[in-house]
């Protein structure tokens, strides 16, 4: 059994505009902190390849979730991801998409090129950096856990 996020089939959806209007007024740093923590946890698990991580050194990333109004800014340096609070006008790489597209991507239900071709996903900035990050995410192999071993004995056949 694969440990990657297992989600039921996700349709393309857009949250009501009110959500984005409210979301954009909320502080964004908790999202950035959560994402940085998650990425650092992935680093510790060894699922992010070191040669690609080196290429991210000192680069500024922005992720915008259109229909929640969320915008996170983070950077990578000296071995860790960190939120960025003083946001520059132009990040090195900027991903923009609705929530449903990001969920489809992380659960591997949609292909990033498909979402890019059909204009659901926008990638701006350094194209080579974007390709590198895309290929890194595509290549991720989540550690395999045996759920069989974790089930109570009376359920085993």
């Amino acid at each position, binding site marked *: 059994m694969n440990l990657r996020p297992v989600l039921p089939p996700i349709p393309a959806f857009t949250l009501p505009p009110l959500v984005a209007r409210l979301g954009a007024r909320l502080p964004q740093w908790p999202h950035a902190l959560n994402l940085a923590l998650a990425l650092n946890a992935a680093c510790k698990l060894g699922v992010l390849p070191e040669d690609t991580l080196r290429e991210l050194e000192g680069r500024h990333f922005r992720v915008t979730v259109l229909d929640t109004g969320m915008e996170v800014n983070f950077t990578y340096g000296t071995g860790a991801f960190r939120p960025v609070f003083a946001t520059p006008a132009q990040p090195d790489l900027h991903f923009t998409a609705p929530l449903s597209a990001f969920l489809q991507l992380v659960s591997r239900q949609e292909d990033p090129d498909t979402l890019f071709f059909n204009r659901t996903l926008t990638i701006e900035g350094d*194209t080579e950096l974007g390709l590198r990050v895309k*290929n890194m995410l*595509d290549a991720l192999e989540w550690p395999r856990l045996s759920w069989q071993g974790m089930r109570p004995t009376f359920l085993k056949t």
Partner: protein
Amino acid sequence: MAKPQLVCPAGSLAALKAAVDNGADDVYLGFRNDTNARNFAGLNFDDKRLAEGIRYAHQRGRRVLAAINTYAQAGRFADWAASVDKAAMLGIDAVIIADPGLLDYAAQTYPDMRRHLSVQASATSYEAINFCRERFGIQRAVLPRVLTLAQVENVIRHTEVAIEVFGFGSLCVMNEGRCWLSSWATGESPNTVGACSPAKFVQWEKKPTEMDVRLNGILIDRYANDENAGYPTICKGRFEVAGETYYAMEEPASLNVLEMLPEIVRIGVAAIKVEGRQRSPTYVAQVTRNLRQALDAAIAAPDRFEVKPAWAAELGKVAEGSQITLGAYNRPWR
């Protein structure tokens, strides 16, 4: 009836596993250097993942093919030979090669390792294929995407080399990678650095009502917000010609042979190839799964074969520009 092999792409170990798990017979891949034509940042296999991928496929009775399909650059033949050595050392099932010098090296050095003629060799006639059989002992040849199905059948009738054709994926219009457009704009092309329109030259610029894409400063296309985009290659751009702006060379679209699968099986095609080593494991899983089902149906009952809407819908969705075409296979003109 002969059963064509389904040959699927892998740019990463995750994609290789997706191909194997969804029914590919063969998986093809490249090393992390310019000896293959998908030499993109962060793509392809290092030695550790390659060894694991080969083990994964072999345990499940599938084969792994290595594309070493660019042309050896002057003074660097040793780099290409080293890739062939690596393939032999790791137990790759076949190498896919275009360069005649490299084919000769592989034939002389590793006579027991299978050799496939890459599409990059542009061998469209049985004479060219039989020559490569005679000189380099090739066992399979991948045909360029320029022949009609009748022409493919004619090649098959006149050679003992197994014939592989493209079944799905993005099209390359100019001489199968021997294209000068990317070189003209950037100085780099598939057969020199292993990549067409290298990403460092590509600039996507989002504006309020449109998105521009440029290759080394040259405007390739301008998409309205509701328009599908394609790969940033000059051949698939829209240009002003004689006062009209349109796809002057080729529309962005993916080849999709679903509806001619029974014919492809009937004429004796040995293998059907899926393009897309640059795509994600999700794409590989989606395309492999649908083509596997369709191909099995075409083999089991060619006379009753019908394209299921679900196959067509899923393959249409992942197609470049969300458009599909039969390409040259049903070209009405000669």
